[in-house]
């Protein structure tokens, strides 16, 4: 067994267990923390796939920024009412299970019926090179410069929108 497989098994196990725990915990703060653990192990999985930049971006953006805001919201609104939401309406559980099964079947279909080697015939060295930040930066500013700039403007408009909404409250 190579080191790569050992690492994959460890990260995959952490990923699965933390994912299950995230869904089953009652306290939303604990759930959020297990989601952070899940993101961390996903970053580890990306590393074993030689996608270093995505791994670091996963930690910085998801674990470091987005989940902090999630935690903020959970801590500040203290969702006692939402915790007992399912007790009032147990029939909602059916929808939740149905959607979960549907998503699971979709993912299973993609994994089982698509050939991962199709169209991607890179050597290991080439795949290592493709994951570096230099390569991603070059691609973003040459081949994908238009979508990249478009996303930039989208984010700018979202930021301005947030600013306008936040300002109105104080009047």
């Amino acid at each position, binding site marked *: 067994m190579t080191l790569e497989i050992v690492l994959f098994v460890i990260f995959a196990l952490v990923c699965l267990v933390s994912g299950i725990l995230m869904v089953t915990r009652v306290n939303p703060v604990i759930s959020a923390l297990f989601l952070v653990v899940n993101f961390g192990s996903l970053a580890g999985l990306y590393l074993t796939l030689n996608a270093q*930049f995505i791994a670091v971006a996963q*930690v910085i953006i998801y674990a470091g920024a987005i989940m902090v805001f999630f935690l903020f919201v959970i801590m500040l609104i203290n969702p006692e009412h939402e915790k007992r939401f399912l007790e009032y309406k147990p029939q909602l559980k059916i929808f939740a299970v149905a959607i979960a099964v549907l998503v699971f079947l979709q993912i299973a279909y993609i994994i089982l019926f698509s050939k991962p080697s199709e169209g991607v015939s890179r050597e290991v060295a080439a795949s290592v090179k493709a994951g570096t930040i230099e390569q991603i930066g070059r691609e973003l500013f040459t081949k994908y410069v238009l979508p990249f700039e478009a996303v930039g403007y989208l984010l700018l408009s979202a930021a301005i929108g947030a600013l306008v909404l936040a300002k109105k409250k104080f009047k």
Partner: protein
Amino acid sequence: MGIGEIILISLVKILLIISLLFLTVSYLTYFERKISAWVQNRIGPNRVGWKGLLQPFADVFKLMLKEDIVPEKADRIIHLLAPMIALFVAFSTFAVIPFGPEVHLFGYDIPLVVADVNMGVLFVLALTSLSVYGLTLAGWSSGSKYSLLGGIRSSAQMISYEISMGFSIGGVLLLSESLRPIAIVESQSGWMWNAIVQPIGFITFLVSAFAETNRLPFDLPEAEPELVGGFHTEYSSMKFAAFFLSEYANMIIASGLIVTLYLGGWQIPYIDLLGLPSGLVALLQVGAFIFKLVAILFFFLWVRWSLPRFRYDQLMNLGWKVMFPLSLINIIWVALLIMIFGL
């Protein structure tokens, strides 16, 4: 080099760094107390050992012997986990900071850095973005108003200053064209230190480092006149010591980063011209790194005992309306330098 040798050498380096960090952290508390005493015209600790030099050990024993109190309303597991997160983040960041050039020892070429990764700077940013959790969770899990306010303040403060910190690093990366800390150090050869080439970025990074380490004048998360002890109000014994240690370890790491990114790392300008033997040069360069580190640490302590604390709105105004635009100006400045002089 086989894989066994690589693992052995890495383990030795990790052990060395961790033990040195613990020693430096404990003596940093001693120097903090001594320097504060000098600033305030007092004597400071002088009873345990010669000139009070054994004081840190006495402090550690005192903290270990104290009762560990967990509040009734606290979330026990997270209450225990929070100081561990803080300590883990503080100590693991040092893995990518190079403290010397490559040396030849026992027939091996050993780079004096624990992990020479090609995205070292991003690694540091990723870990510092996780350090918010330690403080926020400590505040939340204590089940006390003061702790929660301290925790929320700390996360808002760290997220705000992370932005200007990231943009100041952008200026450094433009010049070094690499995210490897060793390459960044090597790009500052001679007097091309980033602190001299891009002084605005240096200042914004320095101020952000103060805010990220929660040091005065930015120690709002633990502002004792308003919040008792802030996020660590409900902590005692070794759990409190863990927060204390992580604060000082964070200071050392911030200083190490400042030295690496802006003060030329372990380099001494024009030392090659003297024609000294390579072993001596390497030793001098490690000494230069430690000297620069200690100078920045002294600056941290000096500022703490000289400046009053900011008000919370002043802190936010400084972060978003002064430091953030300044760091953007710095990026434009560096880009202009590259365009005109082709650095």
